[in-house]
C-alpha cells in the first residue's frame, strides 16, 4: 500500500487522498488578456519533475502541499500551506 503523510493525521493510505493539481498562482483576472487567462485555465506544465501540489486528506478535509517527483511517484515532503509558504517557496 502506498502511503502519504497528512500534516495533521499522519501516514495514511494514498486512496484516502485527493489530488488537486500543481500549485500555481492566478493572474489578476482584471488585467490578464484572453491569451494569458486561457494559458492559466487550460495549460499545464506536464513535464516530469519535482512539483509542489495540492492534496486533500478527504476523510478529514485537510488541504495541504505535497512535494512529489512526478517521474517516480516519490513523495518528498508534505506540509500545511501556511508553513510551506512561510519557508519562502515561490509559486510558479
Amino acid at each position, binding site marked *: 500500500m502506498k502511503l502519504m503523510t497528512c500534516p495533521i493525521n499522519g501516514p495514511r493510505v494514498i*486512496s484516502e487522498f*485527493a*489530488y488537486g493539481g500543481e500549485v500555481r498562482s492566478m493572474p489578476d483576472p482584471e488585467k490578464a488578456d484572453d491569451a494569458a487567462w486561457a*494559458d492559466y*485555465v*487550460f495549460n499545464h*506544465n*506536464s*513535464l516530469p519533475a519535482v512539483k509542489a501540489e495540492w492534496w486533500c486528506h478527504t476523510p478529514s478535509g485537510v488541504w495541504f502541499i505535497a512535494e512529489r517527483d512526478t517521474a517516480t511517484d516519490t513523495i518528498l515532503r508534505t506540509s500545511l500551506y501556511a508553513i510551506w509558504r512561510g519557508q519562502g517557496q515561490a509559486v510558479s
Partner: protein
Amino acid sequence: MFARHDRLKSSYDIVIIGGGGHGLAAAYYLARDHGIRDIAVLEKSYLGSGNTGRNTTIIRSNYLTPEGVQFYDESLRLWRDLSQDFDLNLFYSTRGHFTLAHTDAAMRTMRWRAEVNKHYGIASEAVDSQAVREAMPMMDITCGGHAPVLGALYHAPGAIARHDAVAWGYGRGADRRGAEIHQHTEVVAIELEDRGSGPCVAAVITNRGRIATRKVLCAVAGHTPRLLAMVGLRSPIYVHPLQAMVSEPIKPWLDPIVVSASLHVYVSQSARGELVMGASLDPYELHSSRSTLDFAESLAGHMLELFPFLSDVKVNRQWAGMADMTPDFAPIMGLTPVGGFYVDSGWGTWGFKATPVCGKTMSHTVASNEAHPLIRGFSFDRFARYALTGEKGAASVGH
C-alpha cells in the same frame, strides 16, 4: 518484417516521431496516398512499445459530439478492410458493445447518445435489462442487489483487434513503399529557425545524430509534453497512467464487450480466451508505467459484482501506459504555432480505435500543410479560442 537501415540519412522530407500505430499509419498513408517516400519514422524503443501495445483494443464509434461521431465512424470503416490491405490477420472481431446503465440518469444519457448516433447513421440503440440478460446470461443483472442494470446502450459495430498486428501491418506497408523505420532512435532535441514567418522546424537531434527536415509529425502519446517543450510550446495535456489486466485463458463465454461506468469496469474476452479488463484513469499525474495492487484489487472486486462466477479465475498480468489527457476529452491534432511541426496527440485512453483515421487525416495535413476537414474541431488553438469540443462519450471509463 522490415528493412533494417544501418544509418540515418542526413535529411528527410518528413520525420515522424513515434513508432506507435498512429505514427506508422501516417507514414503508410503518406507513402500510399500522397506519394511521399522520403520519410523516417523514429521510435525510441521497439515498434508498438507505447500505448499501442498496451491498450485493451476496444473499437467503437458511439461517441456524443458530431465531430467525434463522424471521425470515429470513418475510422471504423477504414478498419474493416485493413487485413486485406496488409495481407496480415488483424483478428478484427465484431462483438457488439454494451454500455450498462445502472441509474435513470445514465439511461437518459444512453438514449441521448443513441439518438445522436442514429442521426449520423451509426447503429446504436438503447435496450432494456432483458436484452442485456439475453446477450450475457452469465451476468448478475442485479449486481449483488446494490447497482441493478436498468438497460444499456447497445452498439452492434463494437469490435476488438490485435494491437501489435496493427503496428506491424502499417509498419510493413510503409516500409514496402520506401519509408524508413528506425527503432531505438530517440529524439532528444528539435532545432528551429526563422525563415521570415516565425519559428519553423529545421532539424531533429537524435541519439544517433542530426537529421535536417522541414516537417515533423509528433505522435508520441504520453511523451507529448516533453516533445512540445523541445519546440517551446505549452498545452493542456496532462499525463496520468491508465492500467489494465488480463486473466488466465478460460472457455469462451463472453461474446460482447461490456462497459460499466458506474462500476469502473470494462471487459472483453480475447480470441485466446483471456478476459481483458480495464477501469478508470489513475487519479494523479505520473510519468511512469508502474502497476498498483490497488488497481487490481478494486477492478477484481467490481468484476465480481457483475460476474460472481469468476471468483476462482486468476489474473495473469497487469500493466499500464501513460495516457495523454485533454480537458475536453477530444484529441489535439493538426498544425501548431511552430511551422512544420504537426501533432497527433491528446489521445489519452481512447486512441487505438482512431489509428487508421488519424493516419489518414494526419498524412493529408502534413502533406498539404492544411488541417483535414475531419480534424478541424480538434485544433491545437481551440483552447486559446475558448472553443472546446466536449467529447463526454469518451469520458466516463478509460478506453
